[in-house]
């Protein structure tokens, strides 16, 4: 099928933060079942590109479609629940327990609360469910983030450096999650610096340099 079937269809996309130009002329097509590894030096714009794809930063130019929706239109709000993003820093409330954090997400997403406990179990944190995020190790916090995506089950999964702070057993889990998304006809874009570790999870790679995808 042609590009209309793509989950991500970027043509000449540019992005700015304030007055600084971060991305320009980015072309990127990702079709269902594809997993793209995004590489590039520090500061190349990987995180920024992921946020643009996630509808969180509006492109300042070019044509950008995600999950069939133009990012310049109001429809972009409708696709947000179908997108999952795990960034550099955990998006957790340090004053709440690991479980409460997941339950909050479940409530907002309108999901059964039991899914929260189940997901926590799947990432190996069942025993630590009532521990506060602020009293958990960094790797445990990252695991909770993956538990959230297991629970939310997005069609488009965006991962920023998925390996950092995860021990080998947790990395297997990530591979499992990625495989799951792809099987269901979703797509994954993951930014990383580690070609080898990422290899088992990606179907192809792209390189960001000079603000554009080479």
């Amino acid at each position, binding site marked *: 099928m042609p590009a209309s079937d793509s989950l991500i269809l970027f043509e000449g996309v540019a992005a700015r933060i304030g007055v600084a*130009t*971060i991305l320009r002329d980015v072309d990127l097509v990702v079709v269902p079942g594809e997993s793209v590894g995004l590489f590039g030096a520090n500061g*190349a*714009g990987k995180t920024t590109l992921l946020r643009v794809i996630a509808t969180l930063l509006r492109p*300042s130019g070019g044509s950008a479609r995600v999950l069939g929706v133009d990012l310049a239109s109001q429809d972009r709000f409708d696709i947000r629940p179908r997108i999952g993003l795990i960034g550099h820093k955990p998006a957790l409330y340090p004053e709440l327990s690991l479980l409460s954090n997941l339950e909050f997400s479940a409530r907002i997403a309108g999901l059964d609360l039991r899914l929260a406990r189940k997901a926590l179990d799947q990432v190996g944190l069942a025993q630590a469910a009532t521990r506060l995020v602020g009293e958990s190790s960094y790797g445990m916090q990252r695991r909770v983030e993956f538990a959230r995506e297991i629970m939310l089950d997005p069609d488009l999964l965006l991962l920023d450096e998925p390996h950092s702070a995860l021990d080998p057993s947790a990395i297997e889990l990530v591979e499992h999650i990625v495989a799951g998304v792809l099987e269901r006809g979703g797509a994954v874009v993951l930014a990383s610096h580690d070609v080898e570790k990422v290899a088992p999870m990606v179907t192809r790679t792209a390189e960001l340099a000079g603000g554009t995808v080479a």
Partner: protein
Amino acid sequence: MSDATRTRIGALDIVATVSVVFALVFAIASPRIESQGEAARLLFVHVPTIWLAYLAFAVTFVASILYLATRRLRWDHVAGASAEIGVVFTTVAIIGGMVWGKATWNVYWTWDARLTLTAIMLFVYIGYLALRRVIAEPEARARRSAVLGIVGLVQLIPVHFSVTWWRTLHQTNTFRPRDIQMDGPILAALLVSVAAFTVVYAALLRHRVRLEGLELAAYAAAAAPVGPVAGDAVSAPNIGNSGAQP
């Protein structure tokens, strides 16, 4: 300077200047209020400026709603420009009132509901302008300040009714419907002055809105992907030559 960015003196500016001169003549020619002395002529600055400030903030309110309804940045520019002029007019009115107060009450400031509430209204719109200043992105600025432009109008109600709601030192509202208590010539001079300030408001608004449009164009021009990209500032570590350790 290109033709688009040059400041053009329009017919409106000329009318504004002429009408201010005209109003000045009326103000000087108007009869002296015996009980108050020459300071009473501040009436012709104090009252029109505060009324125009009301108008300016009302325009901000309406333009904010129109922006949210249409999402056209033009309305945001009107809202912002009008609030700016409103703040200037409010300041002029307060200063005029303070000078007048020194002449009649023998103090610059006193604890009076109207005075205090007027000052607070000024703070609301200073806050509005401060907010506009800290947001660079035009759309974000428009949405966020529109909300404040709408909420802010609530402020005008207590200012206007303050003289009725509290026993105040300040003059009660003279202009009630069907019940105007003011001498004919003074009233005439006041109305001329109000008219003159209205034209001044319109002229200022026109210029400010145009300027906002130019700023937007400049912002969009900077967005053109020609300049350096932020990521270019990072290079590979430089460990070959000097070495990390001395």
